[in-house]
């Protein structure tokens, strides 16, 4: 199209490169708000703040469901029978091996706090059902025991544990983890 004069190619190149680079930086910077606006907004994050749950009204053997960050949380006040049946199985043989002690917090073994979402495809399992006195997921038949561990069915993993800590003996705060012990 046009002859580029042989003189000063490097100055022209530098100018074009510099302009192109600054332009590219601008385009990239533009993407920040456009993509960032889809991140959870301030009110969503505020609504997802830690939730305090009073354990006193939960009777032994009762499973209560609350919502934290729009996820169902199962809080199970386990009886001695429930705890024993969780402990007597050889946990090494389970599909997702985990000892009962890893599923609860020391000193509060009767309290089982789980995210109530089946690890198969996301349905909410039904409490006090199934062959293991735990949960039964009606969607594809996964069965969980009294420690929320997968025993049977297509789910690949145990019911997940949310971050939580005991604010007192009768209150848990879901969403905050206890500081690590020394």
């Amino acid at each position: 199209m046009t002859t580029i004069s042989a003189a000063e190619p490097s100055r022209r190149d530098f100018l074009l490169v510099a302009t192109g680079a600054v332009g590219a930086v601008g385009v990239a910077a533009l993407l920040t708000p456009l993509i960032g606006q889809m991140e959870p907004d301030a009110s969503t994050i505020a609504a997802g703040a830690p939730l305090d749950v009073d354990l006193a009204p939960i009777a032994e053997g009762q499973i209560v469901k609350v919502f934290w960050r729009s996820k169902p949380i199962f809080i199970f006040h386990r009886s001695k029978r429930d705890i024993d049946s969780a402990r007597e199985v050889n946990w090494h043989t389970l599909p997702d091996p985990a000892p009962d002690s890893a599923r609860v917090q020391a000193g509060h073994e009767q309290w089982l706090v789980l995210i109530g979402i089946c690890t198969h495809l996301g349905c909410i399992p039904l409490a006090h059902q199934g062959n293991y006195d735990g949960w039964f997921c009606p969607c594809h038949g996964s069965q969980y025991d009294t420690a929320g561990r997968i025993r049977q069915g297509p789910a690949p993993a145990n019911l997940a544990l949310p971050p939580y800590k005991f604010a007192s003996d009768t209150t848990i705060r879901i969403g905050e983890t206890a500081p690590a012990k020394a």
Partner: protein
Amino acid sequence: MSGYSIYKPQNPFMRWLERRLPVASLVYSSFIAYPTPRNLNYWWTFGAILTFMLGAQIVTGIVLAMHYTPHVDYAFNSVEAIMRDVNYGWLLRYLHANGASFFFVAVYAHIARGMYYGSYKEPREVLWILGVILFLLMVVTGFMGYVLPWGQMSFWAATVITNLFSAIPWVGDPIVTWLWGGYAVGNPTLNRFYSLHYLLPFVIVGVVVLHVWALHVVGQNNPTGVEPKTEKDIVAFTPYATVKDVFFTAVFCLFFAWFVFYIPNYLGHSDNYIPANPGQTPPHIVPEWYYLPFYAILRAIPNKLLGVIALGGSIVLLAFLPWLDTSRVRSAKYRPLYRQFLLIFFAVVIGLGYLGSQPPEGGYVIAARILTAYYFVFLLIILPLLGLFETAKPLPNSISESVLREGVPVGASAPPPSGAKA
């Protein structure tokens, strides 16, 4: 398209694609090799600026739509939630609101260029009419967008403008009820305005494609109004026009940024931060600044139906400009009388804009009537007569001649070497 420099793909993938869907050669012939007059000034960059603003409005609009709720009970608060809680929500909202204003700044500059240089004349009549259609689409889209925040001005502007249709004899009131979806502006109105506000920008994109197509068939006008005759008159679109477009878009963005970041509510009206109250009319209902001249024309006519006709006519008449202007000479550069009247016309439009912002009382009414009279007299009487009676200045023989006329190329700082190569 004419057979200028052909795209010959070297890359095997591009050869493969070219045979199946020749997008690359289309882009090449339309925006890279495309012959462009070499003497275009910066008024010709507003087409590119408009394309940029259309893209900006669509992108910011789509992301805003992810957070907005089109229901009378939630709309105002959802906009405030965007401003306060959504990450960069305040930026996106201010970009979109001020973007609409700057979209109109660019379109008015673009129209002014067209009127000054005779870009509407033969063979560019269809190009011009498509442009008027684009302007009308912009006006409707902007109007509906302003209703969405559901502030006092949103609601009452919607009420006033939809009520205009009741001026139509016999079918007026049924049309207004149909537009409202109820007995007054309400939730059905808001919902359908939201739907249409999302749709129309894509209709605009389609008409822009037609507009650019119509342009590329006949080629750009240029400041002399004399069509390119030889190769000396033209340059390739890329890099010459492209770099000017990008440069001036950056300058335009500087002005845009001034408003968005430092005076984001300057062009708006404070009453729109009051949630809509159907039981209380604001003391002065005013549209956004870009509608003010037409609003002034509407209010200047004392009769309701004639006022509405004048309002519509003031825009629709522009579509007939190629035939209202009878002169054979395109550019106002060579039409001294036309230039005077046209500059007065621009000043009249600005004056009407100011009057549209003031209450329709006393002296403002008289002034608005005088200026409205000039608006229509210019289009309907002065323009046709000028063509018959005006003596134009002699036109240059070609673009390159006009460029070299004083011995100095356009924009250069030194005379060209005489004859032989440097």
